[in-house]
């Protein structure tokens, strides 16, 4: 299974590297949304809860773009049938797609996070970096698992572009809650008291539930 997963992952990453479609678009999107928030909120700098909220909502909206395009390569080249004809374990497909989404999110965040620090964040990012990275890692895992599942669910419906955001965003609400609450102390002027354990715990629970669920259920999708 690992071999198959790695092969699919490699193919996806190579396609992304060559075509440079999803990641630049997602990154550009986050920067644009920062600008929107600047004008919409009429603020030069944000801190604390507001900063946390803006950052996470922006990242999640960018994730929606990535999820919509997750099976795009297969669809455009008629690859889905090909994948299904080959004796590929559905779990391998799920792992590969989730991993691919994870990697894309990391690449987007490598730009989006410093950009946030530059454009909108009042207090600096520096001191909080290790904790933020931990939160991001757990968050990306959750988004990757749920995103791959939603992408597969919507893969063969006609109204794909509509269904993905409507399905993905409510499902991500607990993740958003945990991440926003967890990050908030680190984005404040006075890096105040933290409740990190509780929110990381919720995030981990979310990740565990959805990874297990997606793996269990993925077999029933994309099957013919």
């Amino acid at each position: 299974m690992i071999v198959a997963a790695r092969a699919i992952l490699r193919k996806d990453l190579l396609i992304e590297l060559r075509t440079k479609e999803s990641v630049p678009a997602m990154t550009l999107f986050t920067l644009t949304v920062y600008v929107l928030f600047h004008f919409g909120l009429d603020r030069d700098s944000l801190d604390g809860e507001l900063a946390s909220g803006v950052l996470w909502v922006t990242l999640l909206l960018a994730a929606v773009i990535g999820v919509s395009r997750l099976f795009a390569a297969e669809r455009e080249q008629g690859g889905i049938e090909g994948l299904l004809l080959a004796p590929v374990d559905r779990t391998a497909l799920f792992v590969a797609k989730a991993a691919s989404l994870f990697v894309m999110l990391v690449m987007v965040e490598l730009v989006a996070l410093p950009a946030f620090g530059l454009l909108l964040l009042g207090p600096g990012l520096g001191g909080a970096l290790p904790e933020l990275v931990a939160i991001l890692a757990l968050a990306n895992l959750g988004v990757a698992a749920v995103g791959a599942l939603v992408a597969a669910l919507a893969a063969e419906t006609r109204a794909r572009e509509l269904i993905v955001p409507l399905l993905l965003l409510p499902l991500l609400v607990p993740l958003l809650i945990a991440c926003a609450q967890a990050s908030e102390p680190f984005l404040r002027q006075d890096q105040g008291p933290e409740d990190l354990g509780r929110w990381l715990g919720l995030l981990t629970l979310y990740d565990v539930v959805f990874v297990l669920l997606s793996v269990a259920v993925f077999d029933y999708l994309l099957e013919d």
Partner: protein
Amino acid sequence: MYSKGLKPLAVATVASLAAAMALVFFYAPLDADQGFVQKIFYVHVPLAIVALGGFVAGGVMAVRHLRSGDPSWDVRSYVAIHLSIILGVGVLATGSIWAKASWGHWWLWDEPVLVSFLVVFLLYCVYYPLRFSIEDPERQARYSSVFAITAGAFVPLNFAAVRLAQEFTHPRVLDQTGGSLPGEMRLTFLVSLLAMALLFVTLWKLELTAKHAAMQLKKLRRRLDARVAA
């Protein structure tokens, strides 16, 4: 097949609903803080609990469907979810009225039941477009079941997350849903909950009966048409 037991169930439902109403208006004491308005609690909260239970039950039936491949489980799951969505409209409406009556606003972010219900409701509304945008009936059933399971697992997680977030930022204001109810209120609440649950099961069976009859009719008509053609 589904109509077995429907009549006694309906009778039990009406009886318990009547009992619940009687308890609410003649037995349960007036709340010290909210006064008469608190009576809405006895319809809003049981409705919410039953609707959420319906969503989770729909998920469980979806699991049976995927494991057995028997399409009748998918129909059961669909009706449970469909009914819960309709009850969900009632939850949001009664919750909103309660908020307006107690706090002067038509919406409250402080009530974890109401807020997490909004998220769940928004999620389940996607069930219809997802389901009906897939043409192949077998695939439609399968994908719907996957959704039902995912969303069903989501319901408790979401409730926990919303509640955690609110404990942290807003102290509980409409703290009615805990074990902190005095005896008479608790009895009234439990009877209301029972009545609501019976109502759900009765309506569920009722719709299943209608659906089943419609399917049998379609089958019969097709067979008769084939015979005429031959």
